[in-house]
Structure formats: C-alpha cells, structure tokens
C-alpha cells in the first residue's frame, strides 16, 4: 500500500462521518469492500470476537446493504423520521502501515436528536483500510457500561 498520511486518513473519516450525518447511506456503504465486516461489540465484552459472542452488531456486506435498505424505509420505525446526528471524529492515529492494509484508530462522539430526546454515543473506532481507501473492517467500541439512556443503536455508528 502506498504510504498514507494522517491528513488523507482524516479526510476519509470526515467524509464517512458526513455521509452518515446526511443519511447518504447508499454512498456510505460503497466505502466498504465486498469482504467487509462492521462490528459493534457488547459493552461488557469489547475484546470478544463478534462472530463468537453476543455482540451488538456483526454485519458483513450483504447485511450492511440490507441495514441501509431498511433504514431508508418509512417502516424502519425507530428511525423515521430520521434522527439528526452530528459526528465528531478525533485522535486519529495510524497504528500500522502494512503492505496491503492500514490499521487506524480514532475517537468518536455521536450526538443524536430524535423526538425531543438528545443522546450521545461515545467510543473508539478501529479500521482496517485497504488500497484505494476502502474499509475492510470497521469496529466501533462503545465507551458505555450500558446503553443508557440511548436504549438503542438504530442508525449506523
């Protein structure tokens, strides 16, 4: 992989954040490779393998696409009308540059307003990025003991 600078990576993560904040989910899903995974571990087992534990999300490409299709339907009741979100990405670090991939971590704070309720989701992202800047793996580790008072993650973190 040609060497990437942190600025390039930051631009990419900011682009992803804005696609999500603007609900441009079809464009967002195209940031992922066909063999991607999107993971959110359980709050009490952040290190557990999401494929073998009771994690919160463990999507591969097909399910990610289905998640997007569903979220655009008015019958996705938890997100209709859509919540308004604002993502702040920070502390972006390139952890490792490999021949064919890049390990990146970042902090996130997602603020969400829905039906008179204001919630915040905080945590850390871990990415595996591949050439052409595509996401092969995105893992969002929540810095919460419990989803309180949010109660649900009905949009994409």
């Amino acid at each position: 992989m040609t060497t990437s600078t942190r600025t390039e990576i930051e631009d990419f993560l900011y682009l992803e954040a804005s696609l999500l904040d603007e609900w441009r989910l079809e464009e967002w899903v195209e940031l992922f490779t066909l063999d991607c995974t999107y993971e959110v571990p359980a709050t009490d087992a952040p290190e557990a393998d999401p494929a073998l534990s009771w994690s919160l999300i463990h999507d591969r490409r097909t399910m990610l696409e289905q998640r997007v299709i569903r979220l655009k339907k008015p019958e996705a009741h938890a997100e209709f009308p859509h919540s308004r979100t604002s993502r702040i990405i920070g502390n972006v670090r390139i952890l490792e540059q490999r021949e064919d991939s890049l390990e990146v971590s970042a902090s996130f704070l997602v603020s969400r307003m829905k039906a008179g309720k204001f919630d915040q989701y905080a945590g850390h992202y871990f990415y595996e990025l591949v050439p052409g800047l595509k996401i092969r793996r995105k893992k969002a580790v929540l810095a919460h003991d419990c989803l309180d008072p949010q109660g649900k993650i009905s949009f994409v973190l």
Partner: protein
Amino acid sequence: MPEPFVIDNREDSLFQVHREVFTSPEIFERERELIFGPAWLYAGHESELPRRNDFRTRDVGGRPVIFTRDRHGEVRVLLNTCLHRGASLCRHPAGNAKIFTCFYHGWAYRNSGELVNVPSVEDYAGAPTDVYRTLPAPRVESYRGFYFVNFSGDAPDLRTWLGTSAYLLDLAVDQSEDGIEILPGTHSYTLQANWKLLVENSVDGYHAKSVHHTYFEMMMELGQTPPMLGDSDTNGVPPAGLGTEFGNGHATLMYPGNGLPLANEAVTHNLAALRSRAVERFGESYATAVFDLARNTIFFPNFVLIDLNFGMILRTITPLGPDRTQVSSWQLTPRGLDEESLRYRIDNALTFWGPAGLATPDDVEALEQAQRGFGARREMPWSDISKGMGKARPAANDELQMRAWWRQWNAVMTGEPLPREVEEFIPFDVPVQQPQGA
C-alpha cells in the same frame, strides 16, 4: 390510584388495563414491594460462573446483588451492600474473588457471606464479626442450571412456582446432550417506558407484522419464508401458533419455527444431527417441540425466554422508575456446537435482536411512543388486551398470554383472584426420563 386496575369482562370478552398503572409512582413503589418481593426472580445461569470464586454483579428486581460461586463450589446470591453503612461491596461487573471488601471502611466478607474482618475491631464493645456474622442472603434455588432468588421468606419452592412452565426451560436445555451455555457479551440497555410494556411486547405475536415489517421484507429478499405462513401444524400447533397460560402468571406463545434462515449446507447438516440425537434421547414428539417450534415465554414477573431455534435469548426486565426500565439480555446456545453452526446462530440472532439489531429498536420505539401516549390517560384511560378472548384455543397472535400475566399482576397487587381463561396445553410428550438434577 385508579380502581380497578384491570377490567376482566368474560361476558363480552373484553379485557382492559388502566393506563395509570404505567405512570403512577405509587403503583411503581407497590410493585417493588408486592411483585418483586415475593416472586422468584431470575439471577443468572450456571455457565456464567464456570470456576470457583467467579462472580458477576447485577441488579435483580431492583436489588444490587453478587451472583457468585463460592470457594466450595456452591452458587450464591449475596446482597451487594455492606452491613456497616451500605456501600457496594463489589463494583466490578465480573471477576474471580474469594473476599469482597467494602472500600468505604474496609469491612470484608467471604464469598459465602461471612463477615471476616473489621478494621479497628478493638474499638467495638462487641466485635461486629460476632454481632452480624453474615450478610443476609435471599433464598437461591435452581432449575436445570437457571438460578433464581427469592427475597421473601414464605414463597413456595422454585419448582412449584414454575409449575408446568418449567417444561419451557427443558425445551431450551434439551437441545444438546451437553446442556446449554450463555455466550460472552450482555445486551444492556434502558427504555424510557414502563417495564410492563416490554413484558407485554416480549410475548406479543400481534405486533410482529406491523412493527417488524422491514425485517420480514429483508428476510424474504434473502430467500426466506417468514414464520407463521406455513400450511401444516407442528405437533398439534397450528400454523398460526397458539397461546398458552400456566399458573402463577407464566405464559407462552408457540408457533411453527421458521426453519433456519440463511443456513448453508454444513450448518443444516450439523443442526439436523443435533436434532436426530434428541430424537434418540426423547422420542419424536418431544424432539419436534424442541427443534421445530419457536416460542416466546414470560416467567412471571420479569424473566423472558425467546427460543427461535436458530437463536435463543434470555431477558430480564427491571423497573428503574415508572417510565424507565433496564433490560439485560443474553444469548443461550447448545453446548458443544461446531464453530460454524455457532457463528451461524449468533449472526442470525444478532440480525433480529438487541438494541442494534434490525428489529428490537423498533420495539423500543413502539414502547416509548406508548409511554408518551399515556400522557392522555385521563382522557383515554384504558388499554385493550382483548384479542382472542373467548376462543377455546387462542392463536400466537392473540393476547391470552398477556392477560394471564396481567391477571397474576392484578392478583398480587389487589388480592383479587381472577380465574384462568383456558386449560393448560402443552403440545408435546413430556420426556419420561428427566435428566438428573432437574
């Protein structure tokens, strides 16, 4: 407080619940005492404490507890509060410890409850270790690896309390000859809604089509037939399923399972092998109930087991306030599954369930919107739970199971017994040989 809380009109087959019971702080306090005092409450599963001295802290019926296997191997539930001045004895969610020491003044307890050390004990006329000796402990009993506690002295034993509904736990445990286990990871979330709304929702077959429409559409797009659209019965359970009530407010709805969504050949083969071993152990009728039926069960008051075959969840529903509820949910799997089948089960279950699944958030939304709607309770005081009332055999998408739960709730809260609606019905042969330790 409204009187009555429920209207159970058998003549017109009308069942109503007063909406004040979802909003009133007085009723909430009364529930804490009357519902969560005398009932058997689910505390945890034996597989969560594999080694001696393992512990997990959790909240059971509003009480902070330590669920632990003591140094002798006995499972105990200790109140997580110091005898001295009340601070938590253990602030970790899980771990392994022989001694719990209160950080406030340093009083220390063995994991079997004895008070063993008090700093500056020489300043006391009577040593607290002699005065208090042990933490008061609730009763703890288990059924096939499921541990329950009871905070009242005069409750019947757990097996009696469960009655026929114990067989719903058997159907879960008997999926594998090695029993079942809880996977790592807890879904832990809160609702801004009354706890009884999630109780209703957990055994509500009526909402599936409207709330989870997008989920069924997705499954069909992926080549799956949604459940309850078959044309033949399964072990006497019609395609539309059925609701059944047991004593003490326990109830279930059962319906023919929706097969194995998204399973590949290897997984289908492995799970068929699991099933055929169950046929050898228990016979065809019971194995059919175990593997070909799905069921949602509420064990009064707040413990839920939902077994969709390809995934099985346990859920406890703990009230935090009239309009605030804590949910904990775990995934149960047969022990000894090959890794591919395990991955398959988890992925399927995750797709549907949990605060980030493709279905549960819509349930949460519905309950929070109902709670919001209760703002108009003075003008519109009653909720209706009449669907299927008067039928000899209500279907899975009728509301018998909710009425059964509400009648128990009402009996406990008011002392007014309301007779059952239908006879118990379990559509399978109970296996002749119950495994030891049942």
